[in-house]
């Protein structure tokens, strides 16, 4: 026993074990529990009789859930493409010996320090049809100016895209810029000697070499999309109608406001599955790199 103790004082096993225990219980135990609940008819209180996949059938025949999923896809695609594109352009420009680089970088990056709640509220006020941009233009004499996306059910989702691109482009810029700074000077020399036009150099030489960097950006942004809750709450509260409902909000609403534990759990498990599915290609490439 004594030798065991003595040995242990040097090995980090105990720390790892304690930590792993906590993570295992809280994270993976919770997930198992949530999964179990999703197989029951639990409403306000847990009901431990397993009924199978009923809740999932209910979920995927629930109109609001289907709209939420569709919204997430529309929002996700536009947000990821927009943020990647904008952030990458900013990174390319910042990599070209510009004046006042650090000032620009500070400005492009500060939204990351702002909560999604304040981000959503700010954009809600800027885009408000009466007091915001539209009212401003109309007051300035442009009577027919219309920019009512925030209150237009067909367009409201795009206002979320604008606000989240504002929030996250700086993140992509920093990551891509770090990648660009790692590009070998010899490569640039070769590109110049070959006389390859800049846009082709980026598209065909530089970015293909930065695939892992771009992949981690995409994974990060995707997880933001699936978890997206705060921004919707602050900006549109899911409205007008259910035009901007999202799965994350659906789950929270059904857990706490509508107390339908089984359905909320099923929604959460679907969200989890989506997250893992999106991580798979990433892990696959990581794993291949190591072996």
């Amino acid at each position, binding site marked *: 026993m004594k030798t065991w103790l003595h040995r242990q004082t040097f090995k980090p096993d105990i720390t790892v074990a304690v930590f792993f225990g906590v993570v295992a219980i809280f994270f993976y135990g919770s997930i198992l529990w949530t999964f179990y609940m999703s197989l029951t008819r639990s409403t306000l209180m847990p009901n431990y009789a397993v009924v199978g996949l009923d809740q999932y059938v209910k979920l995927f025949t629930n109109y609001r859930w289907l709209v939420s999923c569709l919204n997430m896809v529309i929002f996700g695609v536009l947000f990821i493409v927009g943020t990647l594109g904008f952030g990458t*352009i900013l990174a390319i420009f910042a990599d070209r010996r510009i004046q006042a680089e650090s000032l620009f970088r500070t400005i492009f990056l500060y939204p990351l320090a702002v909560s999604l*709640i*304040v981000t959503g509220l700010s954009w809600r006020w*800027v885009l408000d049809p009466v007091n915001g941009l539209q009212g401003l233009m109309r007051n300035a004499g442009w009577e027919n100016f219309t920019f009512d996306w925030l209150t237009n059910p067909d367009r409201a989702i795009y206002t979320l895209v604008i606000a989240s691109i504002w929030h996250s482009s700086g993140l992509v810029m920093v990551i891509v810029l770090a990648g660009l700074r790692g590009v070998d000077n010899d490569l640039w020399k070769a590109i110049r000697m070959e006389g390859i036009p800049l846009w082709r150099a980026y598209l065909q030489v530089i970015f293909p070499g930065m695939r892992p960097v771009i992949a981690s950006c995409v994974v990060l942004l995707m997880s933001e999309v699936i978890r997206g809750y705060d921004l919707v709450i602050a900006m549109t509260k899911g409205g007008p109608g259910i035009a901007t409902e999202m799965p994350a909000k659906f789950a929270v609403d059904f857990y706490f406001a509508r107390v339908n534990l089984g359905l909320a759990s099923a929604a959460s498990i679907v969200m989890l599955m989506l997250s893992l599915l999106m991580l798979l290609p990433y892990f696959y490439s990581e794993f291949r790199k190591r072996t």
Partner: protein
Amino acid sequence: MSHAIQAERPVFGPRIARFGLYAFLIASAAFFLLPLLLIISNSLKPLEEIRQGNLLALPVRPTFDAWITAWKSACTELECGGVRPGLWNSIKIAIPSVAISTLVGALNGYALAQWKSRRANLIMLLITIGLFIPYQAMLYPTVKILSSMGLFRTYAGIVLVHVIYGLPYTTLLFRNFYVGVPDEISRAARMEGASFLRTFWSVILPISTNILVVVAILQFTGIWNDYLLGLIFAGNDNLPMTVQLTNIVNNARGSVSPNVNMAAAVITAVPTLVVYFLSGRYFVRGIAAGAVKG
């Protein structure tokens, strides 16, 4: 960034292209600054100026009245105390949450980096997945666990939730840092007969100042800006500032006063913005470190 490093970076040749580059950068800067400047400027207007409805106009008679109302007397559905109690709650929640999750993350990260076992990779995998688990898949069981401990909707409860939910992230950041620290340092301490904890405390922590600052800043930003966990786990007596702000803005009762709402939003954003501006370099480094796995 030194110019020597970028010596080979091609510069846009023609003057006109260079001009276009700056035009784009300045337009982008305007896009990023616009919302913040607008809400600051409008929060300084008296109500009549807001009602006249020119969002872009600078305040004619700037006044801090809206700020004062937002600070101490703006109303939620429940009470009229402004965002002040929220600020205090957020500070009270953030300080222990950041300190504990950072220190425990450092200890775990060091342990994992030292742990040369095949299972270490599996644990790393589980932790990395942990980063991407949507909160929704853990929320209800967490409520149940905390309730059974009598901690649901209490101050200790919300701190515990922030610590545990933050641990995978802090552990991973520290682990990636400590993997790069030469083994000789730990081995030397071990030769001297120092225990694992002792080595960590008096040898490893002192060389970790930079990464400690980086992780603490990231954790502070995350915890300060959190909304969902505070809403569910903090309880009415400890609601953080983000929740308080939303309650004030969404309060249907009472007169609608956008300038007060905007002032409340600015006050809520100030602490993390101050941290960002004071620690720019660390913040950037932290984001890059957190995003691109080592």
